[in-house]
């Protein structure tokens, strides 16, 4: 019950965040965003047709009315249909979010797991050549642009000029085998790019925990390394790790990997959202922005609960 009360309180306190995110995004993306009128007009429009389209799009309404309308849509979760395709926004998101998750999930998980693994090696062999080699590679990895990695990997792994092992692009997934073949190159690119950052981050967290007094105490009482790692290092490192991982989740869900989706032509939510921004597709934008804000509030709640679970010093105030 304490948790429940806390959850409710936390959710209520998340309202300002939701309002802030929606207000700023609405202002930028919808109010000052691209004018969709001329994309919805034929080749030879009349002034009357232009006015009709503007009315349809709500451009003739004052800002406040449009924002309040948006808030009402947010509460009822009725965002209507895309201005571009006419597809129902809910079904649009239901179609694209799973794709983005399936696309970015493996890269996200692998990038973090490999990061932890490399960081462990580096931390364990602190100041030796192993550590230095890993950390130097991390800096190199961090210095290569994601864009360059994507272009290079596509040529190397997918094109007929390279190895040609995987599909060049697209997302035509009907079986698990298909899935693996389509997700492989994007995953490799994502892991490559994230690994440097992750390894550095996890190494610093692990080193910090490994030099703590209680680790020395545990060693002084003969605790074997595996147990030491689990009980004294890993669990204590969970707070920064949880923060990093959980707050990445809304971004993984919403922006997917915009660049990956654009470059590989994958119909995920990142691409949809990006297209919506550049074409001024208000209903889609409104839904995505609202969803983002809500996900962040949920992420905050989740981190707080997880903090509580891993660290008894933190209480649900």
């Amino acid at each position: 019950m304490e948790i429940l009360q806390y959850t409710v309180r936390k959710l209520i306190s998340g309202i300002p965040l939701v309002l802030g995110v929606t207000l700023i995004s609405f202002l930028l993306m919808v109010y000052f965003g691209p004018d969709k009128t001329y994309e919805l007009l034929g080749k030879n429009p009349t002034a009357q047709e232009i006015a009709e389209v503007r009315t349809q799009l709500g451009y003739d309404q004052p800002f406040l009315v449009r924002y309040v309308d948006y808030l009402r849509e947010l509460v009822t979760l009725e965002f209507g249909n895309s201005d571009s395709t006419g597809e129902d926004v809910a079904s649009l998101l239901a179609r694209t979010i799973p794709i983005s998750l399936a696309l970015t999930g493996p890269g996200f998980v692998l990038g973090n797991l490999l990061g932890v693994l490399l960081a462990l090696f580096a931390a364990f062999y602190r100041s030796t050549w192993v550590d230095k080699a890993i950390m130097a590679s991390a800096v190199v990895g961090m210095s290569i642009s994601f864009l360059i990695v994507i272009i290079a990997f596509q040529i190397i792994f997918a094109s007929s000029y390279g190895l040609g092992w995987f599909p060049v692009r697209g997302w035509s997934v009907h079986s698990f085998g298909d899935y693996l073949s389509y997700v492989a190159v994007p995953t490799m690119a994502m892991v490559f790019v994230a690994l440097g950052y992750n390894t550095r981050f996890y190494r610093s967290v692990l080193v910090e925990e490994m030099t703590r007094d209680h680790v020395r105490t545990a060693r002084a009482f003969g605790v074997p390394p595996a147990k030491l790692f689990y009980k004294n290092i890993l669990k204590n490192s969970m707070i920064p790790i949880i923060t990093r991982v959980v707050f990445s989740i809304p971004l993984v869900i919403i922006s997917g990997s915009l660049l990956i989706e654009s470059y590989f032509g994958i119909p995920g939510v990142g691409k949809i959202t990006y297209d919506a921004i550049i074409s001024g597709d208000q209903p889609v934008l409104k839904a995505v922005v609202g969803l983002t804000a809500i996900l962040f509030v949920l992420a905050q709640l989740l981190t707080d609960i997880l903090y509580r679970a891993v660290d008894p010093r933190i209480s649900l105030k």
Partner: protein
Amino acid sequence: MSAVAIPAVRRESLWSKAAWKLARDRTGMIALAFVLLYMLVAVGVTAGWWAADWSEVRGGKWEAMSAAHWFGTNLIGQDIFARAVYSTKTAFEVGLVVAVLATVIGAALGAVAGFFNGSWIDEVLLWLMGVLDSIPFYLFVAAIVFAMQDNPYAMHIAMISTFWTSVGRLIRGEVIKLRGLEYVEAAHAISVPEFVIIIRHILPNTTHILLVQATIMFVSAIKSEVILSFLGLGVKDGMSWGLMIAESSQEVMAGFFNNFLAASVLMFGLVMAFNMFSDALQDALDPRKVG
């Protein structure tokens, strides 16, 4: 006014120790030399010493490397080397503008938030940071760029408005810590105005954090520019490595790599050098490692 003297001494020792440490860090110094070299190139471009002809059409289409065109020519016969060199200026301009302004704004707002910790000012600033951090970066930048179409600095503004929050949080934390220190309390007691306390006593003690953050943001800005330019959201007029890579993304498939290589190698060099310099700086300025 011993209250003023103490932090000054502390600072000096930190800086002199850091400078000494940095000077002894061989990798750091090599990296710094590279960064300075790039900076010289950028200054030269600004002064018009070289690469002034980056937009001239001087050759044929996709010419190979030659004495006249060190890196060949692009689709419409412009000199790729000149364009890559010119882009160094763009990179520094983007990096410096974003890093400096984001640091200044972050420091100012972070200090205010930290100083008024617990009051509504702090609450509002925290809320703002939370809000800005909650909007996915590229979507946010895209939105700003579209909203401010005519402004050549739309991309800069977009990056600054998201980058400052991390500085803001750090400085806020540091200020809360520093505010509890005696000399600040002493200054408070003799009723020195609050903004004077922030500017004269608190901010100087956070400069090492700001310096490191600025180098990190410099690198992020350059890397983001490449992706934004590729997406068509970046540099408006002029040339940049991102635009060159965008130009090249189709060409590489036809076996014409000059644009891609020139831009990505030059960019990698600068980012790598800056990353390493940033690391060295961080090591040198880390009080836990000093001494």
